């Protein structure tokens, strides 16, 4: 009996607001322990929450981008359980009336694009951080820091719509791109901006009802999700083969050892006693706010990628790479408008991305140094075969490091591009004289030899000749006609 896996994801997205979800503490990362805290996020007696508009707005934008239904009046609820990184021993979240429901995220897969349907998106608060137990005198202790407590989170729950771990990874990659695109989150999984739990069950292929599911927590990288889910599918398969029943359980994925550990919990432990948060009014998102947010949404990555393919005649692969980040897309479009799209995309995808990577610059850093008009001029020169290839790379580097247009840069570095017939003809003739053998081979029908001759001329010109011009001259000198066949 063939079994198929059914996987659902629960993603937590940390919203990049200035302040926390329910208080005015900075929501930044990396401060000294317990220094970004106040009575509210420390859960001091008497403190009360007030919801942050910017976090709600982020949920709204994400919900709209994914085509969710936005509830005009949603409800905050308390989820009650004891944990030392939770200041109040309850988490303010949303339960039976979340802000967004339904919707889907389009994901580009090898077999084409597919929309993965969502159940809901809601707003909640993050917990603090506790550290691995350590020795402290004659006993062991854990340290707790509440700087992260109360940072806004969006929880996004998918339908159990995934069939294999690769789909999960592709979904997360697309989700990460979207939250960055919308400016909601930095989306860096290593920093915990994006976290993921997965529900996994197996069932006979073709059966519609779901098997017993287990939940894997702690999937903190896209690779981790892929490997954790793979491991759990294997574990469940093995259990079934040996006739065991799958027990509902919570598992922790240990990425360092690629291992799953069952989380022990006392009987009856999971009774969260949800009830509406009495300290907060209902969360109202009026039609006007919703419509305004909808109108202000940027063109979404999947729509934009399709348009780039269409408008700039770039291959689908290029459109995907460029569409990874909104500012990259913007830069590309500014450079490619009225130019050779494919050429612009080649230079941006290879050279711009390589250089920004090497130097740790953002696309915005790059665009400040090389505004689109400068790159456009450069591309025009390359496109007109004004600059030979090896020289073009050099000019490109000068472009990044220095001021001025292409002509100015060439002057400054005392480079004369040898593009004219008069400049090059003496070199061409010299090469033909010095290489009688290859010349004979060429004339004998070995066309590939032309490449060798072009190379020799380029060498003599110290890389300053334009290869296409050299090639034309060589052909003319070798007889003004095609080699005999």
């Amino acid at each position: 009996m063939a079994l198929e896996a059914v996987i659902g994801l629960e993603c937590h997205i940390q919203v990049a607001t200035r302040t926390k979800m329910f208080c005015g503490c900075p929501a930044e990362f990396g401060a000294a322990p317990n220094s970004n805290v106040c009575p509210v996020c420390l859960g001091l007696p008497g403190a009360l929450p007030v919801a942050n508009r910017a976090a709600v707005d982020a949920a709204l934008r994400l919900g709209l981008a994914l085509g969710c239904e936005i509830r005009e009046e949603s409800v905050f609820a308390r989820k009650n359980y004891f944990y030392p990184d939770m200041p109040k021993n309850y988490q303010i979240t949303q339960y039976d009336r979340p802000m967004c429901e339904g919707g889907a995220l389009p994901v580009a897969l090898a077999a084409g694009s597919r929309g993965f349907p969502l159940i809901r998106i809601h707003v909640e608060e993050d917990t603090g951080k506790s550290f691995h137990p350590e020795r402290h005198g004659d006993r062991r202790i854990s340290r707790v820091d509440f700087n992260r407590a109360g940072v806004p989170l969006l929880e996004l729950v998918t339908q159990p719509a995934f069939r294999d771990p690769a789909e999960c990874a592709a979904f997360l990659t697309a989700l990460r791109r979207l939250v960055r695109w919308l400016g909601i989150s930095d989306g860096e999984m290593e920093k915990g901006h994006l976290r993921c739990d997965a529900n996994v069950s197996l069932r006979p292929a073709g059966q519609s009802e779901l098997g017993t599911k287990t939940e894997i927590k702690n999937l903190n990288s896209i690779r981790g999700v892929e490997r954790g889910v793979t491991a759990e599918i294997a574990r469940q398969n093995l259990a079934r083969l040996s006739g065991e029943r799958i027990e509902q359980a919570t598992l922790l994925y240990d990425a360092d050892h690629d291992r799953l550990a069952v989380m022990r919990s006392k009987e009856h432990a999971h009774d969260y006693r949800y009830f509406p948060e009495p300290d907060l009014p209902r969360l109202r998102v009026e039609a006007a706010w919703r419509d305004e947010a909808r109108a202000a949404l940027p063109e979404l990555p999947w729509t934009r990628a399709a348009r780039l393919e269409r408008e700039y005649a770039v291959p689908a692969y290029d459109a995907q790479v460029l569409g990874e980040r909104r500012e990259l897309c913007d830069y590309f479009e500014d450079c490619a408008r009225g130019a050779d799209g494919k050429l612009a995309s080649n230079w941006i995808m290879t050279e711009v991305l390589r250089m920004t990577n090497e130097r740790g610059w953002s696309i915005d850093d790059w665009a400040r140094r090389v505004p689109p008009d400068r790159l456009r001029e450069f591309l025009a020169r390359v496109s007109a075969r004004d600059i030979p290839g090896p020289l073009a790379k050099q000019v490109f580097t000068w472009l990044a490091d220095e001021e001025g247009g292409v002509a100015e840069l060439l002057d400054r570095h005392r480079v004369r591009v040898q593009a004219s017939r008069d400049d090059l003809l003496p070199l061409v003739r010299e090469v033909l004289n010095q290489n009688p053998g290859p010349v004979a081979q060429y004339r004998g029908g070995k066309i590939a030899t032309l490449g060798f001759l072009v190379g020799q001329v380029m060498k003599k010109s110290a890389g300053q000749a334009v290869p296409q011009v050299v090639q034309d001259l060589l052909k003319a000198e070798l007889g003004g006609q095609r080699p005999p066949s």
Partner: protein
Amino acid sequence: MSARESWRYSAARLSNEVRRGAVTAMEAVESGWEGPAREWEARVHAVAHHDAAARAAGSRAAVKGPLAGVPVLVKDNLCTTDYPTTCASRILAGWRSPYDATVIERLRRAGAVVTGKGNMDEFAMGSSTEFSCYGPTRNPYDLTRVPGGSSGGPAAAVAYGLCPVALGSDTGGSVRQPAAFCGVFGLKPTYGRLSRYGLVAFGSSLDQVGIFARHAGDVALLFETLGGADPCDATTRRTAAPDVSGWDRGVAGLTFGWPANLWAEGVEREIIEGLEDAAARLERAGARRVTFDFMPGEFAVATYYLVATAEASSNLARFDGVRYGFRHDDSSDLRALYTRTRTGGFGPEVKRRILLGTYVLSAGYYDAYYLTAQRARTRIRREYDQAFEKCDFMLLPAAPTLPFRLGEKTEDPLAMYLSDIFTIGANLAGTPGLTVPVGMTPEGLPRAVQLLGREDGEPELLRAGRAIEVGGEPARLGRETEREFAWPSKR
């Protein structure tokens, strides 16, 4: 009157004397401690924390505002930076808040001085101030009787003369019932009119900060000072608090409801006499009585004990021995730390209510109990809405009995809960209520009535309270002592 006797002044008069320089803030604050407190505090035990240095600092910092130099005893569940805030619970033993509650901030901004923290039932759970980790407060009119609760300390302190006004909190009658037992005014405002920021939560949807005073005018003065929206409390209303400046305008043209079915049985004779006395005073002052039946209080009590305990079970989860307060020493693992800290830190009544609330919210019971109670609450609000179509306010008992004796109800929770039968409805409906003293019984216990108003009905309640205050036979709290509170001669 000398500065030493300034404890007899109303808050309005006292601040006036301080502003014009006749009395210093220090004298105003200390006079209650040097006079009446010397005689009564050791026996009554109204105060949970006091600190002469903190009072002196507070007096020096007092600005010449509308409450200049006025000493205020605040219940021990309001966060203050200059005194411990412990909710009379072992679990918060010695805890000092790093912040002031919004109402405390507003008091200080008006020139008032926090004169100490008032004793209370632990976490405001109780109706007698017997459930305090510091021991009970006694009724200053009869030391064998309770002062009511849970804000028994502030009520008793205002009654014996420590300070002219005090702050409590009222979740199910915790200001109005002790006000009645101690013979002072006690206001529970409309939900959302006074900030709860810094009031340690018990039942979040029911809690309101309340005001004790010896005069209707002082209640108005404090309400004006404290009321209004607070950006730190999302449950406060944005609109301006109702204008109570007309508290002395009289009641001509107002109608009051007389739901006599409520005291047909189970209410002591002296209480009914007090109601009739108050009704007569109101009618003499030009108000009109309308009689109708009103929903019996049992439904409200039932609803209340489901909603309040559910919210409390969650609100009190934060007391776990990690970030503040008491921690049980012998806790090698976290589960033990939580369980031992909470078991050792909370008193019996608090544990009882946490257990009840946990049960009410737990899987399988939520719909039957919590959800039903929240629906019943809507029904109760409607009953109030309908009543206030027929009248401007209702006249009711504040409690079914005169102050009961210490120990009388501590072993019978349900009987204790039923002593709130007339006050709980207003918390469920979110509407205001005012306890008004109406003299004394022949054996020397205070008698009082309760006025219940519609949402934002504080102006009418205060006008009526004032009419009752000045309209009666010159009793101990009557017209002649309006500005000069006189403690009854020693019993």
